[in-house]
């Protein structure tokens, strides 16, 4: 009885230890990755990045080069014509 009792305690402890260093460890690691990727702070930092990019775009004399501007223009025209056709 005594030996069984002590063995049970050891088994329980080893179970918790294994659980901690397997599932619990993975849970924390994934949790931290998710938190870091989708956190409010991360979104805030992306917003700040966008703001600073927009500011620098305003200050530049030419932000989109002529080739890109041509492609974007054609692309927008294409969308417009498709929308008109479907109306």
């Amino acid at each position, binding site marked *: 009885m*005594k*030996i069984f*009792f*002590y063995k049970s305690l050891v088994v329980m*402890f080893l179970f*918790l*230890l294994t*659980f*901690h260093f397997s599932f*619990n*460890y993975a849970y*924390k690691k994934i*949790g*931290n990755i998710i*938190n870091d990727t989708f*956190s*409010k*702070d*991360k979104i*805030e*930092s992306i917003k*700040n990045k966008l703001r600073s990019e927009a500011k620098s775009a305003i200050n530049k004399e030419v932000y989109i080069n002529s080739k890109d501007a041509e492609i974007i223009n054609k692309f927008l025209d294409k969308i417009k014509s498709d929308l008109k056709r479907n109306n």
Partner: protein
Amino acid sequence: MNHSLINNKNSLFLLIFYFFAVFFGLYIFKDYGIHIEEKFHRLNGHFWLNYISQIFNFNELQFLTEKKISEIRDYTLSQVSYYNKYGSIFDISVAYIEIIFNLNNINQIYYYKHLLSYLIFLVGSFFFFKILELRYKNFYLNFLGLFLYITTPRVFGDSFLYKDTLFLSFFSITIYFFIKSIKKPNNTNLIFFCFFSAIAFSLKIFLILIPFLFFLILIIENFHNKNSYYYFKIFLFYSFFFIFFTFIIWPYLWSDPLKNFLNLFSSVRGDLINVRILFSNEYIQNRLLPTNYLFNWIFISSPLFQNFLFFIGLSYCGARIVRRFLSVKEKMIFNDFWRSDKEQIDFIIFLVFFSYISFFIFFNAPFYNGWRLVYFLNLFIVYFAIYSLEKLLIYQKRKKKLIFFPLFIPMIVIFILNNLNSLISYHPFQSIYFNNFLNKETINGYEGDYYGLSSKHFFEKILEIDKRDNIKIAVASHTPLQRGLEAFPTDMQERFSIIGQDYRNADYIYKNNISEVNIKLNNKYEIPQNFSKIYDFKIKKLLVYEIFKSNL
């Protein structure tokens, strides 16, 4: 071995030590600032005193507490009716003293609360000394243990702030009566054990492990003595009075004892704060802490020699217990885990420490503000530090060689001087002590002044440099700075307007490294470019706070 406080010369020495400790406390207790949770605790005390007065129809007391509650306002203050599970015995006592003695000066109320907290800490330290006395016959070793227990810098600094060292004090008393109840389970010892367990449980619910560990020790005793009925009776007696005292001293349980008791455990995850904390230069979620969080904090914020001795003592004691465990047989002449009364105490202390550490790690305890929630572990740290010193002395006696002796006394003197030096150089900020052997980057990569104690220092500094009647202060930190204003008389308080993160209208900005957001990604606490740093307050390598002034 009992210390009569009249006959023994060692007792006289102890008495003189405590006399100086009290005198010292009286001399310095007003140096500590007002911490950010003082207001909540004052409100907590009056809330529950009001509740008691309603139940017992103490109309005058009810009127007075309602008046006090209406006066305690702060837009950042948590509602006691929601956060109602915090143990209130200390807060109620202080609220009652406030009413009985008609104390109206808020900062005086807080300062006397600090003093009372320190005196309770000294009482707790005396019981720690009694634990050592049960274990070791060497008075000087026991006294060294008492000295280290009191002068561990973070614990000493916190002893005035009645949060976590209050639990440490009651925990020490509980452990003393735990050991006494195992050695001599008479009614007196058991009643005291139940009573102090109940108080400690009301302060921090994780004390609930103690009844289970008590039961476990009784089972181990029973394996040897084979008297199940006797031990079961002891446990029933303990359980009954533990529940009884818990109910008596905790008004939260009165309205619906069983439901509220179960709520304590079911709501623990939801009620604890969920924030990002600065740990090793990274902002991490406090519910996803790494396994080494506690060990890391204890190592960097306790004196190095204490950590070293603790580690040696714990390893030695642990190895012996494992050896005993491996040699357990179904029938044995001795007890399974101990051969003497002294070993039994070692086993109890080791078991309690090991159980708590395992519990915190396995159940992902969400810590914050360093290791303050578990300052009660200081009892084990000092116990095992003294244990290793005792083993060193025994080794020396056995070998009959004075190998360590020439080193022993200077080593002890260095330990004592190191602690004293830390207490003096950090005063009154011992609660944010860091190990002096760490470099500046490491130290500042951890949370610093989480209690906002530096607010007092900050306001004094501002008053020194700015004589205007209306000074606007913005806060680039998660610290509710306005609460620190209560350390000053009302006329001084009125000179300051705390405007949160409205930096554009601020004259000065207060900044420390406490943040609930990741400041590497979030610019919530970023200092605007039209402000420049005019002052920073450092203690050794630790940057406590900075002041920025508007250039406009």
